[in-house]
């Protein structure tokens, strides 16, 4: 097999290195820390011509990142979970400045209770920030997505920052073969960063991020961000074509797996989609006509591609690795919304919640999903949200509660 063995974190660091970034403000947080450790080492040794600065918080880190991008530097940074939320207001500032940078988020479930393992409530909390979002399934895709992200972000039709997401542990600390693109080819793929509206300098002063009063200019600028984000769909397809020409790997905004004749489709994102593909293969081997749709681009929301993949199916199951308390699965809502106007929409939409806090998704759970979804399709009535939580897990939980409780209570 070609390539080198590396973790998702190291692949992310390579993405930044190959993109020839100028500036990396950093702050440690598990499970992201390896990325900035690798970059610190490379900047220190001189193999990367970038300035690396350890900041005092993620809030400061994101501010420095955005301000440097607004000054005309190509900027990379990374965080996780609490760090992303601590920096959250700054995300909105940066997208409002239309300062394109790439932020890698290594997904980790949010406190409280505090934990280290992944789910997607962290990155999805940023879904309305104006950052574009690409979610990766493999270590290779992490690296490739960072190169693609810079090219989309820096396009004059877009000029918005991008989050590239990977799952903590399942990708961040997992090694697998990754092909490193040649730096000369990356340079060919990724033109220099020369934004027309950014770059502070004495000869061309300007004021950025200024206050606006009254709703009219605010509405206008916010709407421009929406149009810019929507432009990213076309820019992504051009970029993906250029990427494929140079590197031979193809990425679309969504990825279909064994969809051709699938009656029922499971929708997933990120690293557990690999598991979902295994489950599809196993079900297919037993004659079930099932397939998988992996969402790769979450912002902009690729509604047409999703509709195209899901129309005419009997039933669709959305597996959300997140939970919006009081509502359910976040992506389920968006899938449901974009199918509403589809004349040939699936007869049943099912919502499953699984993998919260990094909880494993077993083959049995996938099988339950396929069975319940098929039944829902026959009944023509969706279900959910259904929490994937087994009897054995519940027994284990009861044991823990007994230990946690004071004697006699």
């Amino acid at each position, binding site marked *: 097999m070609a390539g080198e063995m590396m973790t998702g974190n190291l692949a992310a660091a390579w993405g930044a290195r190959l993109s020839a970034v100028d500036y990396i403000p950093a702050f440690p947080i598990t499970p992201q820390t390896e990325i900035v450790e690798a970059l610190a080492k490379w900047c220190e040794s001189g193999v990367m011509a970038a300035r690396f600065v350890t900041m005092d918080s993620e809030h400061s880190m994101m501010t420095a990142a955005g301000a440097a991008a607004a000054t005309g530097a190509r900027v990379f940074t990374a965080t996780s979970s609490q760090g992303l939320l601590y920096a959250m207001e700054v995300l909105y500032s940066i997208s409002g400045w239309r300062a394109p940078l790439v932020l890698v988020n290594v997904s980790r479930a949010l406190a409280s209770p505090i934990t280290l393992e992944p789910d997607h409530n962290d990155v999805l909390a940023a879904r309305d920030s104006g950052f574009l979002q690409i979610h990766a399934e493999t270590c290779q895709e992490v690296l490739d997505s960072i190169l693609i992200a810079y090219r989309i972000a820096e396009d004059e039709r877009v000029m918005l920052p991008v989050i590239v997401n990977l799952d903590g542990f399942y990708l961040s600390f997992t090694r697998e073969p990754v092909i490193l693109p040649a730096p000369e080819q990356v340079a060919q793929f990724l033109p220099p960063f020369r934004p027309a509206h950014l770059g502070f300098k004495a000869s061309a002063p*300007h004021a950025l991020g200024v206050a606006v009063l009254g709703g009219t200019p605010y509405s206008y600028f916010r709407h421009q961000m929406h149009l810019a984000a929507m432009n990213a769909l076309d820019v992504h397809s051009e970029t993906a074509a250029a990427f494929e020409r140079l590197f031979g790997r193809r990425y679309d905004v969504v990825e279909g797996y064994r969809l051709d004749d699938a009656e029922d489709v499971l929708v997933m994102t990120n690293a557990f989609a690999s598991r979902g593909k295994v489950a599809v293969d196993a079900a297919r081997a037993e004659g079930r006509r099932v397939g998988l749709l992996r969402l790769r681009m979450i912002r902009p929301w690729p509604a047409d591609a999703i509709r195209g993949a899901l129309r005419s199916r009997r039933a669709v199951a959305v597996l959300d690795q997140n939970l919006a308390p009081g509502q359910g699965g976040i992506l389920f809502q968006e899938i449901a919304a974009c199918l509403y106007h589809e004349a040939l929409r699936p007869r049943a939409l099912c919502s499953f919640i699984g993998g919260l806090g990094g909880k494993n998704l077993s083959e049995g759970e996938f099988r339950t999903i396929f069975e319940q979804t098929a039944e829902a399709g026959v009944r023509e009535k969706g279900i959910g949200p259904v929490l994937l939580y087994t009897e054995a897990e519940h027994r284990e939980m009861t044991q823990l509660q007994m230990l946690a409780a004071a004697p006699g209570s």
Partner: protein
Amino acid sequence: MLAIRFHGRGGQGAKTASRILGTAAFLEGFVAQDSPIYGAERRGAPVAAFTRIAREPIRERGIVAHPNLVVVADASLIGDPAARVLQGVGEKTVVFVNSPLSAEQFRAETSLPGRLTTLDLTEIVVQHFGKRGAISALLGAVAGRLVGLRQGSIHEAIARELAELGLATSDIERNQAVAHQSYETVQPVAIETGVPQPIVPAQLQAPMYEPPTRGTARISAAANSVLRETGGWRTFRPVLVPDKCNGCWLCFVYCPDGVISMTKDDKPVIDYDHCKGCQICVHECPTDALVAEREKGGGVAWRAK
């Protein structure tokens, strides 16, 4: 329903006036609603406030687009496009202006639409308090008189609203006294409620994508704030008495807005388009060469200290 719109400059008391009017109407058993609108609070910047008074529950909210009565705390606001004093003012709208001019004189000078009444509230305040200050109680009292509320409820409303702001009892009583005078003196004009305007559907136009040079909240013009004239903020203007000026530069140095420049022979030139009328120059002039004059032909001059 009666809809009243107050226009003032930050610090003059338009918001409090709207509350005094709302409370007074409430005390008389009406349904009332009042609300202010402002950006970040700014002394001197245009602000507006609204009071609605009705016998039935009020379902409208927010800005008053078609007022029955407009109360203008500062005549300079009429010429300030940012203040939008004339928005929705028709022939039947009653307009009160705080001005030393009579309604006839004022109309002759400004060709203001609506039915006009004026009173010099600033003069009343300067006479009673010896200096410029907020005129919320006076504005509230005038508005109360014009919409037909009783003096007793205005009196009580002033007590409640100014106590809420933390004013001492003695200050509240003085405000009640000047409010009383304003209530008695203002020339009433009967308010008529007109036929509602027909509603026309809005013509929507979604903007297209533009390059980020235009499509971002970004200003590439340099120092273009001078296009925005703040001279209308003044109620008093600093005026040079050239013979007394010793050319010391202090007025130029201390001006926060940088609207005073010095000629070659060390005489100050004041940019009245932008001078906000803070009177720092008047206070700091060591030779009393700068004096404050009331804007709009008031003729009330004063000197610091």
